[in-house]
C-alpha cells in the first residue's frame, strides 16, 4: 500500500482494523462470513423474499417434492409439507425466528454475564471465592435440564425457552469475564489508573472494557452457535416454539411424522440449522485466529 508520508511515520491501524485485516486474509473465514451474511439476510428479508406466507395451506399440493424432482412443481421450489405449506417460505420465516431469538439470548446473557463477571473478578477474598466456586458448579447444569424446569414452571413456549437458554448461557460469560478481569487486575496499567484515583466503574469502563470487547465478541459467536442449536433442539422436543410458529427445530419435529415419505421435510430444516451454526463457527474461528495473530505480534 503506497501512502504519502511526510514524517516517515508508520501507518498504525486501530486494533479492530488490524483484526479485520488479518481476518480478511483468511479465505475460509471470509467464505464463512459471506455464508453468514447470506443466511442472515435470508432471515431478515423473509417478508420481501418469501414466495408465499409461511402459514398458507395449499390443499391441492400436499407433500410435493422439491422442484428438481420429476414430481415437483416450480411453484414450490423446495416442495411442500404435510399441510401443503411452502417449505421455502417456512424455512425463511423459521430462520428469522430462530436467529432472532438466539441473538436476544446472547445479548441478554452477555450483558448480565459481563456485569456479574466483572464484579466477581474485582472482588477479593471469601466473597469472590464462594461466588466463583458456586458459579463453576452451576455452569455444569445442562441447558436441557434448565429448560425442562422452566417449561415445567411456566409451560411450553418460545419465550420460556429463551429465558431458559439465557439462564444457561450466563455462567459462561461470567466465567470468561471473571477470569480475564481477575488476571488483568494485577497489571500495571490498572494500578496506574487506581493511583490516579479512578473509581471501580471508571477502571472497568476505560481500562478493562476496551481489552475485554474483542474477547467478548469471540465468546459471543461461540454462545450464538450454542444458542441456535439449543433453541432448535428444544423446538424439536416440542418444548419450544409451538406448532403454527415456524421455527427450524419445530419444523424438523413436524417433518418427523412423515419422514420416510418426505425426507426433505427433515433434511432441509436441519440443513438450515447446520449452515447457520457452521457459518457462525467458521467466523468465530477466524476471529479467534485473527486476534491471536494480533496479540502475539
Amino acid at each position: 500500500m503506497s501512502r504519502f508520508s511526510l514524517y516517515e511515520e508508520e501507518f498504525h491501524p486501530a486494533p479492530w482494523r488490524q483484526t479485520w485485516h488479518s481476518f480478511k486474509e483468511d479465505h475460509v473465514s471470509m467464505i464463512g462470513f459471506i455464508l453468514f451474511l447470506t443466511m442472515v439476510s435470508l432471515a431478515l428479508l423473509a417478508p420481501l423474499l418469501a414466495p408465499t406466507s409461511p402459514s398458507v395451506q395449499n390443499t391441492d399440493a400436499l407433500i410435493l417434492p422439491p422442484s428438481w424432482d420429476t414430481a415437483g412443481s416450480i411453484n414450490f421450489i423446495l416442495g411442500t409439507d404435510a399441510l401443503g405449506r411452502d417449505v421455502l417460505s417456512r424455512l425463511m420465516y423459521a430462520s428469522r425466528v430462530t436467529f432472532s431469538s438466539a441473538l436476544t439470548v446472547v445479548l441478554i446473557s452477555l450483558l448480565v454475564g459481563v456485569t456479574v463477571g466483572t464484579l466477581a473478578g474485582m472482588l477479593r477474598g471469601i466473597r469472590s471465592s464462594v461466588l466463583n466456586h458456586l458459579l463453576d458448579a452451576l455452569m455444569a447444569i445442562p441447558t436441557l435440564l434448565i429448560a425442562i424446569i422452566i417449561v415445567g414452571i411456566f409451560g411450553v413456549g418460545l419465550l420460556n425457552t429463551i429465558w431458559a437458554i439465557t439462564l444457561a448461557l450466563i455462567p459462561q460469560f461470567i466465567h470468561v469475564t471473571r477470569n480475564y478481569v481477575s488476571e488483568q487486575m494485577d497489571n500495571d496499567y490498572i494500578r496506574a489508573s487506581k493511583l490516579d484515583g479512578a473509581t471501580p466503574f471508571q477502571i472497568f469502563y476505560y481500562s478493562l472494557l476496551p481489552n475485554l470487547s474483542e474477547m467478548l465478541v469471540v465468546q459471543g459467536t461461540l454462545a450464538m452457535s450454542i444458542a441456535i442449536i439449543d433453541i432448535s433442539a428444544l423446538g424439536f422436543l416440542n418444548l419450544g416454539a409451538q406448532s403454527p410458529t415456524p421455527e427450524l427445530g419445530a419444523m424438523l419435529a413436524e417433518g418427523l411424522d412423515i419422514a420416510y415419505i418426505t425426507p426433505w421435510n427433515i433434511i432441509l430444516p436441519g440443513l438450515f440449522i447446520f449452515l447457520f451454526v457452521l457459518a457462525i463457527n467458521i467466523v468465530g474461528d477466524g476471529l479467534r485466529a485473527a486476534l491471536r495473530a494480533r496479540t502475539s505480534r
Partner: protein
Amino acid sequence: MMAVIIRYLLLFVITLSVLICFSLALAHMFPGDPLTNLSGVTTENAKVIEHLANKWAIDTNPIHYFMNYCSLLLQGDWGISTISGNQLAADMARVIPATIELSIYSAFIAICIGVPLGCIAGIKAYTKIDYSINAASIIQYSTPVFWSGLAFILIFCFQLKLFPLSGRISVLFNIPHQTGFVLIDIFLAENIDRKAAFMNCLHHMVLPSLAVGLVSAAALARLVRRSVIDVLNKPYISAARSRGLPFKTIFFNHVLRNSLLPVLPLAAIQITTLITNAMIIEVLFSWPGVGNFLLQAIYQQDYSALRIGMLVVSTLVISLTIFADLLNRIIDPKKGSVSDVSI
C-alpha cells in the same frame, strides 16, 4: 493435598445443599399443590393428606422442613411418580445407569477418535492433513445432534437395514435388572445365550453412541490440536530436538503428556454437553434413560418425577465436574493455574 480434597468436599456439600434447596423450592414453584409435587400422591382423603403433611413436615419452619427433606432423601424415600405410581428411587435406579452407560460409550468413542486426530492435526499443523481434519471437525461440531441422529436412523436403519432402530437390546432377551448397566447384566444373567445377547446389545448401541460421541470427538480434536501446537512451540521441545532425539520419543515423552494436561479441564466442561446430547439422542432411539424419563415427565406434567429427575441429573453432572476438577488439581503440578488453553 488433604486441604485440597477437603476444600472440594466442602464445595460439593455446599452445592449439593443448594441443589436440594432448589428442588424443594421447585415443589412450590411448579403448578399444583406442593404436597402432591413432593409426595406424588393425589388424594382427597383428609387423613392421608394429614399423614403426608406430617411425613414431609410441610407446615413446620423452613429449616426443619429442609432437614426433614434431606433425611427423607437419604433414606431413599423420594416419593412416588404422580402418573405411574412407581417409587421414584426405583425409577431412577433404572434410568440413570442407562444414561451413564450411553455416556460412557460415547465418551470412549470421543476419546478414541478425538485425541489421535487432534494429535495428528497438531503435529502436521498448517498442512493439508491438518486442514482436512479441522474442516471435518468443524463440520461435525456444527451439526445438531438430533439431526445427525435422524440421518443415522434414515440411512442405517431404514435404507441399509444395518442396525436396529430403538432400545438397548432386543426384547427377546430376558435380562433381569441387576445393576442397570446392560452389558454387566448380561454377564450376571443366567439361562441366556450370552454371546448372542452381547452381540445384539453392541449392535443396538452403535448408532446412539456414535451420534453422541462424534460431536464430542470433534470438540476434543480441536482442543487437543491447539494444545499440541502450543506445546510444540515450547523451548523444551526445541531443546529435545537439538539433542537429536527421534520425533517419536519427543512426541510420546514430552509433547503428549504436556499437551493433554491443559485439555483436561476443558474436556471436563464437555461432560455437560455430552450428557445433554445423550439425553436428546435417548429420545430419538427410545433408549430407556433419564432424558426420555424427564421428557415423558414434562409431557405428562408429572411434577414429582421432574423434581427428583432434576435433582439427580444435576447432582450427577456436578459431581462428575467437581471430580474432574479435583483430578486435574491433583495431577497438575502447577496447581491453581486455571485453563490456559484455547480452541
